[in-house]
């Protein structure tokens, strides 16, 4: 039995290492080390699908974080302004055209057009880990399990870096 598990593990490792030969590949998966007291972290990676697909869900072991969501950081336009006093930027000289307010919005799915690499990167799309169980330290690794619209799944090893 033990031998079987070892062999299966080896196979699993092999399969991960060769994930680029599957229908969907994930490259350069990383997360920034978390600061003290930081409760949420972001995971970034490059995703490429051979055929049109979409990332619909992501999860990690609860020993890393109990809740995982796919988010996008977006810059709000002037019409999205939520607070009342939105004239501040205009008076001082407009710096970005629309006030530069940034917010995170959950996204249902990340479309992956065939053959096109879609980057989850700082300031854009990211997989958000909420209520981190332990701080993420440089050199740590953990797996993110991805689910796609096609039914494909992919387990991706994430490396924690200084960022």
């Amino acid at each position: 039995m033990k031998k079987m598990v070892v062999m299966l593990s080896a196979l699993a490792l092999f399969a991960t290492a060769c994930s680029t030969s599957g229908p969907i590949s994930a490259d350069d998966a990383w997360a920034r080390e978390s600061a003290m007291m930081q409760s949420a972290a972001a995971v970034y990676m490059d995703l490429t699908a051979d055929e049109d697909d979409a990332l619909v869900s992501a999860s990690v072991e609860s020993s890393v974080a109990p809740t995982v969501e796919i988010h996008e950081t977006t810059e709000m336009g002037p019409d999205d302004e939520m607070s009342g006093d939105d004239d501040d930027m205009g008076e001082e000289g407009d710096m970005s055209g629309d006030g530069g307010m940034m917010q995170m919005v959950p996204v249902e799915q990340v479309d992956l057009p065939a053959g096109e690499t879609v980057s989850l990167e700082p300031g854009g799309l990211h997989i958000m880990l909420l209520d981190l169980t332990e701080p993420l330290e440089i050199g740590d690794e953990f797996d993110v399990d991805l689910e796609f619209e096609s039914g494909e799944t992919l387990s991706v090893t994430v490396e924690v870096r200084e960022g």
Partner: protein
Amino acid sequence: MKLLRPLLAVAVLLGACGPAIPDEPAGIVRDPAPEVGSVSLPDLDADGRAFPFVAGAGGVLVVYFGYTSCPDVCPTTLADLRRAMADMDEAESIAVAMATVDPDRDTPEVISGYLHSFFPEGHPLRTEDDAELRAAADAFGADYDVTTSEEGDVEVAHTGFLYAVDDQGQLALTWPFGTTWEDIQGDLRWLLHGG
């Protein structure tokens, strides 16, 4: 990727010959420069005493308005600033302050611990008086909005700018989110060397 190391080595060598000071800053210069030295926020590292937004003589004060539950924009910006300052001889002339726009969740322990893990000498600024926070943010042209959704999730929107203040209390430069650490470093040198 292998190419990166020799390139980095060359970059370091070049740096040793004299750090590059840009002719023009990458950050935004606002004209006239907003005056921020007359506003202040309580500094948790000084028993809550008022921390005026003025750099030390000949130095630069870098100010950020953010929050700690921010997984993407805030740590990216602070990590880039840390990287920019890491190999600067002039780093001791640069002070860093972060004001939380989410004081309900960012208790004194949380905002202090968070900022200090990026900058051990950083000034964590926090007030529960929204009028005071709003006045400080307004002086910089910063904006923020904290709301709670029907599901009870706290949602925060904020301007992602990083600000540099001079020793006269004037807002010298504004860096939009996404400014590279190299540009921030060049601009800090530009400011410190009479830009």
